[in-house]
């Protein structure tokens, strides 16, 4: 049974192709249909995840704030995304008079395309990888950089002061957080010896009864934290939602968008978030690897999507708690804390590898990472003078 479930998607694809071949369909159409099916399922799954996430986020936020969250549309509010979709489509799409219409129209498209392209290289299951690329991680960051251009296009073309400030902030934030993101990903790729996501996942196979995920190694844990923080910044989510800082800039670069264009931005942001969660799971949480060999009967793609949903859930949890960073703190944090930590983790991973991955390697990398952390945080809190205040009282 578990074997059948494991290969069900692939079996289904072959069955359909076989059926079509039976009808005497020419070869090149078959390939087209195969590709179409893969792309269709990928986009379908992630749109479904987006719909689910948009309501689950509101419900988790609500529960953290001791209220119910949407519960009117459908059982427990699960049809809320349908309602939101209809609302977004039927809403009037206002374009400011002095806006640069072409760029204003193109921005959501340019935002949506990389978010979808990036889904091609993620390993969803044991042999469920849409596109087998040797340099998958490189492809991910190359295409992922497109969102920065889209955000700036949106901000600049809206001809609105808030949007321009939001766009400037977006550029500063995304560029300065791209660097630590790439270095943290590089660490995992270096240790598993290949840039192909499939190979990285296989390198995190079970070692004895313990799962061989990178997150359980000292350098891996720190690299995962750095990657997670930068993932928050890349997808403009709290505490890095400065471009769309609604308490200062009304809605930042999205101020002049409404109707379906706003929905596209919204969708692109969520799918981008899922994509980077998928990469985080691939690099550090062992992709589709089961935590314990005994749990192998569960199909691999279930593990992958479970971990992605868990990481996305933690992003909502962070959003419910943390306030927004100020622009100079955010930039200072990236360049003065995350980047040095990234380099040190890179070094620690190397020490861990050459010290034979055993307890000696553990101790070495732990020492390096710990020392760097203490040094950097001491400098960090001294510069920000975050001291604890003692208050006088008078009778």
């Amino acid at each position, binding site marked *: 049974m578990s074997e059948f479930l494991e290969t069900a998607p692939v079996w289904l694809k072959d069955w359909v192709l076989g059926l079509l071949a039976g009808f005497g369909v020419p070869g090149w159409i078959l390939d087209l249909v195969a590709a179409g099916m893969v792309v269709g399922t990928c986009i379908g799954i992630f749109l479904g995840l987006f719909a689910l996430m948009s309501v689950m986020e509101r419900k988790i936020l609500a529960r953290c704030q*001791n209220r119910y969250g949407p519960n009117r549309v459908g059982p427990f509010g699960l049809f809320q995304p349908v309602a939101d979709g209809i609302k977004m489509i039927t809403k009037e799409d206002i374009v400011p008079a002095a806006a640069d219409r072409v760029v204003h129209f193109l921005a959501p498209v340019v935002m949506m395309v990389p978010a979808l392209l990036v889904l091609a290289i993620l390993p969803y299951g044991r042999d469920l990888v849409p596109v087998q690329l040797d340099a998958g991680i490189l492809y991910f960051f190359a295409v992922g950089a497109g969102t920065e251009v889209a955000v700036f296009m949106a901000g600049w073309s809206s001809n609105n002061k808030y949007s321009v400030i939001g766009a400037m902030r977006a550029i500063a934030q995304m560029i300065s957080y791209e660097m630590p993101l790439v270095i943290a990903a590089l660490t995992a790729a270096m240790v598993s010896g290949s840039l192909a996501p499939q190979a990285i996942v296989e390198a995190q196979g079970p070692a004895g009864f313990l799962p061989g995920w990178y997150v359980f190694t000292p350098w891996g844990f720190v690299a995962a934290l750095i990657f997670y923080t930068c993932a928050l910044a890349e997808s403009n989510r709290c505490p890095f939602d400065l471009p769309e800082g609604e308490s200062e800039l009304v809605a930042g670069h999205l101020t002049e968008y409404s109707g379906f264009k706003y929905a596209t931005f919204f969708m692109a942001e969520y799918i981008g978030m899922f994509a980077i969660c998928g990469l985080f799971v691939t690099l550090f949480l062992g992709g589709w690897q089961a935590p314990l060999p005994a749990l192998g009967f569960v199909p691999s793609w279930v593990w992958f999507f479970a971990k992605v949903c868990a990481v996305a859930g933690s992003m909502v949890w962070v959003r419910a708690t943390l306030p927004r960073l100020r622009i100079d703190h955010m930039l200072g944090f990236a360049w003065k804390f995350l980047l040095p930590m990234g380099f040190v983790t890179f070094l620690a991973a190397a020490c861990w590898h050459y010290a034979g991955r055993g307890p000696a390697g553990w101790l070495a990398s732990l020492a390096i990472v710990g020392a760097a952390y203490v040094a950097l945080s001491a400098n960090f809190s001294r510069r920000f003078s975050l001291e604890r*205040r003692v208050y006088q009282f008078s009778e």
Partner: protein
Amino acid sequence: MNEQKTSRWSESFAGRLLSGLRFPGAGLVKGLAVTARNFVGSYFEKDRLLTELYPEQRPRLPENSRSFPFLIYDGNDPEAGMRCVSCKICEKECPPQCIYIVQDRDAAGKALKRPRVFNIDISVCMSCQICVEVCPFESIRMDQVFEASSYDRFGSLVLTKRDLLKSNEYYHGIHPTEAAETDARIEADRKKKEAAAAAKAAKAAETAKAAAEKKEAPAA
């Protein structure tokens, strides 16, 4: 003047442990921990969720709650049992001036102790219940009907005498203790008046008797 650390939470064990760790992550973790406790708590501790699901769960209004004024009539005939004697004190005292009273006149033009027109414009009334406070005849009280929205901006926002008049039983229904006190006060006033009337009658009888005796004495 005694010094004190920030306050109670930081004195508790968890607070000291977490805020004691001098690295930047401690505060964030403490915040995340509280949010998680609330998230889990909202499923188990029922008193955390205060939201009333309005149309399904009707709100339980406390007894003193007030929305717009209404007039009280005793017995079952609204017109006859009406307590209001159109003394127009409430019309004068109403801060936003939203009450309008026209005194009733009988055929001969003599003023009657009853209002012919008693309108309250509830788009202006701010339910401050000063009319209730200044009314000497306990004839106007605050209702608890808060669903007074209407589709028509002009017509239905002026409550006429017919809409305002409600029975004393209804008043006992919504404000039991206040209604009981009001009835007691009215009862006491009536008794005092009767006693006074009886006393006056008795005095009148005496003077009549004395006068009669005076008349008889000279006659006799």
